[in-house]
């Protein structure tokens, strides 16, 4: 057994022992880590869901309706169709004949559709319904369409689209900021807890130094304690957040708020991300916090 390894072994042992002998403080630290990360988790999930809702909403408006002129020939129609299919962001192009348009209108009017029977002739033009990959291509596609001949009118949810894009940008940026702030706050709370815990053992650290221990040797067990506290704290947070989310999901499903849950991100999709984020923060801060907090006490 080399000396280095022997020292490492004794450090790990000391880390565990230290955590156990200061168990009240350890519990408090774990509690703070868990709490801070739980909040982060809740907000993370909330934001992911809001994002999901806006995305799904966006999908409902990502189509462009073009009405063709009455006097257009079948060849022209084919040309237009081929042309459109080449535009960037176009998912599908579906033709709608005059009769189909009337049928759809009748359906939409429902009980008042008999009004349409009073019409002398079918007033609805032939049209194409263009499905987009994403709402963001809308403006481009529309300006391209405007260059084509044979098109009478272009209809798309211009206002709504613009609004949704704006809102989803606001939400996206806002969530990044909020998550950023929350991460900072979590890190702050966790490192505060470690700072206080370390400060409480200032005397112990000083004694070790006076007996001739190197900074590295003293740091070791504290870092291992930090890792342990971080791991336990973040594991608890992951479990609690996941259980809570699944529980809420199930309750909503059972109460038949399916229209709510259909907008919710399934817990499995989130789980891995949350685990990675939490473990990084929990353990990372456990280590960094210990090192930084120890610094001022090691200068003796």
């Amino acid at each position, binding site marked *: *057994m080399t000396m280095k390894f022997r*020292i490492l072994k*004794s450090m790990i042992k000391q880390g565990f022992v230290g955590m156990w002998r200061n168990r009240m403080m350890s519990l408090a630290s774990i509690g703070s880590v868990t709490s801070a990360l739980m909040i982060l988790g809740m907000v993370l999930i909330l934001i992911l869901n809001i994002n999901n809702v806006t995305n799904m909403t966006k999908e409902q408006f990502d189509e462009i309706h073009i009405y063709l002129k009455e006097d257009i020939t079948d060849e022209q129609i084919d040309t237009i169709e081929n042309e459109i299919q080449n535009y960037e962001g176009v998912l599908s192009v579906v033709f709608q004949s005059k009769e189909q348009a009337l049928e759809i209108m009748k359906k939409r009017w429902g009980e008042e559709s008999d009004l349409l029977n009073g019409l002398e002739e079918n007033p609805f033009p032939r049209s194409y319904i263009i499905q987009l990959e994403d709402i963001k291509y809308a403006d481009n596609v529309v300006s391209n369409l405007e260059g084509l001949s044979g098109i009478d009118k272009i209809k798309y949810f211009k206002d709504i689209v613009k609004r949704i894009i704006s809102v989803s940008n606001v939400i996206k940026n806002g969530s990044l900021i909020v998550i950023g702030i929350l991460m900072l706050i979590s890190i702050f709370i966790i490192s505060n807890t470690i700072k206080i815990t370390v400060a409480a053992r200032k005397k*112990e650290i000083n004694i070790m130094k006076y*007996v001739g221990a190197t900074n590295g040797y003293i740091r070791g067990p504290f870092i291992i304690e930090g890792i342990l506290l971080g791991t336990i704290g973040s594991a608890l947070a992951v479990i609690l957040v996941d259980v809570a989310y699944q529980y809420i999901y199930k309750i909503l499903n059972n109460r038949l708020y399916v229209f709510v849950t259909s907008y919710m991100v399934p817990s499995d999709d989130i789980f891995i991300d949350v685990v990675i984020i939490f473990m990084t923060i929990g353990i990372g801060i456990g280590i960094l916090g210990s090192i930084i907090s120890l610094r001022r006490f090691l200068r003796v």
Partner: protein
Amino acid sequence: MIIFKNIIKEYNNGVKALNNINLHIGKGEFVFVVGSSGAGKSTLIKLLLKEVEPTSGKLFFNKKDITKVKNRKVPIIRRKIGVVFQDFRLLPNKTVYENVAFAKEIIGASAKEIRRQVPIVLSMVGLSKKASSYPNQLSGGEKQRVSIARAIVNNPTVLIADEPTGNLDPDTAGDIMDLIMQINRRGTTVIMATHAKDIVDSMQRRVIALSKGKVVRDDQRGVYDHEV
């Protein structure tokens, strides 16, 4: 081996604890440091340990000016010195055994060495029975003896003892003094700050007397009595 050269120590609050100290302590010497309360004995010792820095002057340890040693190298010096602290300085979360073993662990001793030597020094200070007690479960004298055990467990080149018998009854104190003498005979330099007049008087060793931060007496075969 240890040379104090014009050492002055003034604490932050303006207290001049040491005022121009010049001393030369040879290898293997046995030195008593005496003086009234607040004379500067502990400060002298703390300088050697680099627990405090001198305001001015030089301090040589093994021909090296330790006032200029880098922070990173401080532990190396401390490991060569075994110290019995006036306030014991035991780790509260470690048992008696672990406190002593800790001094060996930090120098990278093997588990085997630790298991062999720690019980020996504990029995030398009469604490075999208290090995698994925590410091707050010990009497004052027992704490002091743990501090002694920790100081000697690594066979240091220098043993510094600040009032090592202050909490001991005369018998136990005698035993501890015999132990320190024995360590000294093996070649360890011993510096001992003490108020135990009878011990100093009976041992007839070098006595350095401090008063108000100055060396007022330095006798090769001295006695405690500082009102010379």
